[in-house]
């Protein structure tokens, strides 16, 4: 008997020993189950939400940030800024004593300075810059948002003062600077890489000023970050941040339930109510300035005909999709601008579901017997569309009613985007999440001629008249005048329907009850800088 007891005690001790350390390890870190691989570790290079979520707010800082709650700009790496020359020159006073990450591959010898700002912007502004063509040389956000044309030059006044000179007055300039894409890189690190002859590492082995520093990335498995001990806003409470890459939404849910994930991206919309009932899990819903839309590739016939596009817009039953795809957790989109935008007009005319009208329009366009086409739908969940494949199937059925035979095509997400940028699609179910609150951000990056060139315009629709009006709108400083102009623009676009807005979804994130401080700003990616794990669950 005593022998058994002794054995039992030994066993339990052996069991407890490592377990205790296990708890320490877990307590020290946080696991975020993300939906896919980032394309790179620099958000300047692409606009994918996955890349932004993985990098921007964790690794980097921006000159200024946007506080969506108070609707104001707040200091980032610039602690103060002012407008000179009637709004054509912006002067930023930089924060001193901000350090770049100290990593095994880079030891900074100096703190953050104006030179770093110059490098970070010149890289994409100046086609002659040595780093311009490194890792693709595509800067879709800056090209599509017009920042490339807007910034005439950047002047260093002294190590902690930098001036941006604009080609014209632009009311959206600050909003663009506050986006997740306008990150600040280290000029010193870039120089070191040039000397080593490995400039491509700039975007793969990143160095920034953000709350976390990069440790390791294993494709399809994880990204490992560690807290930046000398972060200028104070060391984050979480020491180790791991992105466990879990593309399957069901698995993310299961792993959240078992506690393998602390926070998950894109919980399944149809399971949300069940999660609400679970006391160990918390779901946060937030309004998100996003739009799911159906883009018609106007470079390919017959989608170059307005009548055909209008017919297609009438042919699909969007209210049904709100119920089946979004489970009611979304708003039907009337126009291009979301209802959260100040320029939104409530009386926008949409395209009601009307198969009869669609058939008539098709007949007018010269397709009385319909035609065959393809619908491209991504296989992964996005903020704006929880299940694009299912949506495509519904549309397939709707289109069959008006005699159009639609084929559904899907690729892995990054491949999907690359092929779409090359214009290989007929139509695509895609969407957009605004990066800043300016209405310009919903129109120019999506539909301008400039965006056609950068590949971000999924419709390849280029209307110089539309571009002209956008330009006029952005130079106005009077909000009311701007609003009127945007409404005119919107009416024009909705008549042409290069894309059909479908819905704007709420944004969800689910986390374990003992995690707090995970931020999900409406304009931008997830932020872990203030996240922490509570030892005891608050009652």
């Amino acid at each position, binding site marked *: 008997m005593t022998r058994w007891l002794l054995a039992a005690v030994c066993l339990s001790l052996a069991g407890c*020993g*490592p*377990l205790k*350390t*296990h708890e*320490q*390890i*877990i307590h*020290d*870190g946080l*696991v975020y189950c993300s939906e896919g*691989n980032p394309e790179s570790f620099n958000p300047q290079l692409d606009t994918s939400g996955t890349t932004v979520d993985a990098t921007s707010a964790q690794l980097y800082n921006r000159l200024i940030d946007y506080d969506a709650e108070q609707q104001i700009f707040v200091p980032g790496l610039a602690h103060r800024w002012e407008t000179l020359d009637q709004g054509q020159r912006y002067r930023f006073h930089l924060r001193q004593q901000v350090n770049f990450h100290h990593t095994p591959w880079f030891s900074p010898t100096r703190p953050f300075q104006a030179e770093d700002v110059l490098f970070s912007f010149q890289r994409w502004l100046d086609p002659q810059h040595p780093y311009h063509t490194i890792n*693709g040389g595509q800067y879709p956000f800056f090209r599509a948002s017009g920042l490339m044309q807007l910034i005439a030059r950047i002047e260093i006044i002294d190590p902690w003062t930098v001036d941006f000179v604009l080609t014209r007055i632009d009311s959206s300039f600050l909003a663009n600077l506050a986006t997740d894409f306008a990150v600040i890189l280290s000029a010193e690190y870039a120089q070191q890489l040039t000397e080593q002859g490995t400039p*491509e590492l700039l975007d*793969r082995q990143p160095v920034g000023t953000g709350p976390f520093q990069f*440790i390791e990335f*294993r*494709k*399809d*498995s*994880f990204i*490992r970050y560690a807290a930046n001990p000398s972060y200028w806003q104070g060391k984050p409470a979480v020491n*180790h941040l*791991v992105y*466990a890459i*879990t593309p399957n939404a069901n*698995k993310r849910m*299961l*792993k959240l*339930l*078992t506690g*393998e994930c602390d926070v998950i991206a894109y919980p399944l919309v149809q399971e949300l109510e069940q999660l609400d009932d679970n006391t160990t899990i918390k779901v946060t819903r937030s309004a998100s300035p996003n739009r799911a839309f159906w883009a018609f590739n106007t470079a390919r016939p017959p989608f170059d005909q307005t009548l055909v596009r209008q017919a297609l817009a009438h042919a699909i039953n969007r209210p049904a999709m709100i119920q089946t795809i979004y489970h009611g957790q979304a708003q039907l989109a009337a126009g291009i601008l979301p209802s959260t935008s100040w320029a939104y007009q409530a009386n926008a005319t949409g395209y009601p579901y009307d198969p009869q009208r669609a058939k008539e329009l098709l007949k007018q366009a010269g397709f009385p017997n319909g035609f065959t086409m393809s619908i491209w739908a991504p296989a992964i969940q996005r903020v704006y569309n929880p299940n694009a494949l299912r949506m495509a199937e519904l549309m397939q059925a709707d289109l069959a009613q008006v005699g159009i035979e639609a084929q559904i095509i899907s*690729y*892995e997400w*990054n*491949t999907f985007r690359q092929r779409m940028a090359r214009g290989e699609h007929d139509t695509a179910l895609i969407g957009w999440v605004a990066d800043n609150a300016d209405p310009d951000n919903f129109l120019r990056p999506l539909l301008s001629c400039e965006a056609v060139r950068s590949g971000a315009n999924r419709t390849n629709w280029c209307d110089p008249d539309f571009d002209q009006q956008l330009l006029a709108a952005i130079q106005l400083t009077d909000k009311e005048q701007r609003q009127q102009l945007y409404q005119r623009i919107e009416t024009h676009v909705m008549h042409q329907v290069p894309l059909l807005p479908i819905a704007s979804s709420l944004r969800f994130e689910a986390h374990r009850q003992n995690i707090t401080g995970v931020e999900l700003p409406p304009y931008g990616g997830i932020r872990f800088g203030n996240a922490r794990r509570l030892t005891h669950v608050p009652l």
Partner: protein
Amino acid sequence: MFRFSLRRILLFSITLWLLSIFTFSLNYWYPGNTLTNMSGVTPAMDTYHDEANARAMDSTIFRQYGQYIAHLTRGDWGLSLTSQEPVFPRLMQQLGATVELMILGALLAVLVGVPLGVYAALQQRQWQDRLILSLSLSTYSIPVFWFAQLAILLFAIQLDWSPVTGQIHPLYAIDTQTGSILVDIWLSDIPYRASAWVNALKHLWLPTLVVALIPLTMLVRMIRSAVLDTLQLNHIKAARVRGLSDRTILVKHVLPTSIQPVLREAGLQFSVLVTNIMIVEVIFNWPGIGSALVKSIFERDYPVLQGGVICLAMLILAVNFAVDLIHAWRFPQVRDVIDED
């Protein structure tokens, strides 16, 4: 034996050569730029012309094939089209993860399957035999992907005995060196090695079980019938007549003879095991070569796709080759039979 080995080696080399021709031709059959398919170097890269020269792209197809083989044997398998990383070192790590699962699964299958099969044979037509047989038949009929999902639901979600997916909890910072998690923990110098072992084993047992299941049930049935056949042989009867104990007869005479047909079959079953491992890897997010292969198909990542195919095909060929050799070495009577095939 020498003649036999020579023939096997020749056959093995010819198969490898055919495999290399096949993978080489794939580069031309895939859509897009042949050089990019082969090396992962896109025309936009600075190194494109060097790579084109190195692979003799402007020369004859025979020289291109020669360069292709030279690159393969050098371990230069090109770059991944999605991550721009060299394919070979990554594949070797993934191979480590796969082989770990493979060895453990096969081990479990042998350790449980052989005794069960022998026991069933000894209890022929008793209820134990019937139970084992019907159980093995019904488990054999469950598809792996279905069984894996059920196992996750039961053991991970309901009972919480195992995590849902992965090799180890991601917060354990284990450097990936070999890809096999147990070996990597052993090689690492982390202070919390003991708890890392515990955690890795917790992740490991469920996929191992799922991988082992089909080979296990196969083994049970093969061993059972082999033992039953052997028991009918004259030398066993003779041993029994001489009064040898049941135990001695079983261990010294029945088992060694029964292994022979099973061993031959086991080599053929290996490719089934590999197929199952690929499915299990995808379901359990196991960072092995199978899930990499499936992923590369979705991503149209031709260099990785090709590398994965070569790796797995070579593994299957090598194991079959080894099984053949062991078989012939251990059972001289089959050498001529196999040769005649």
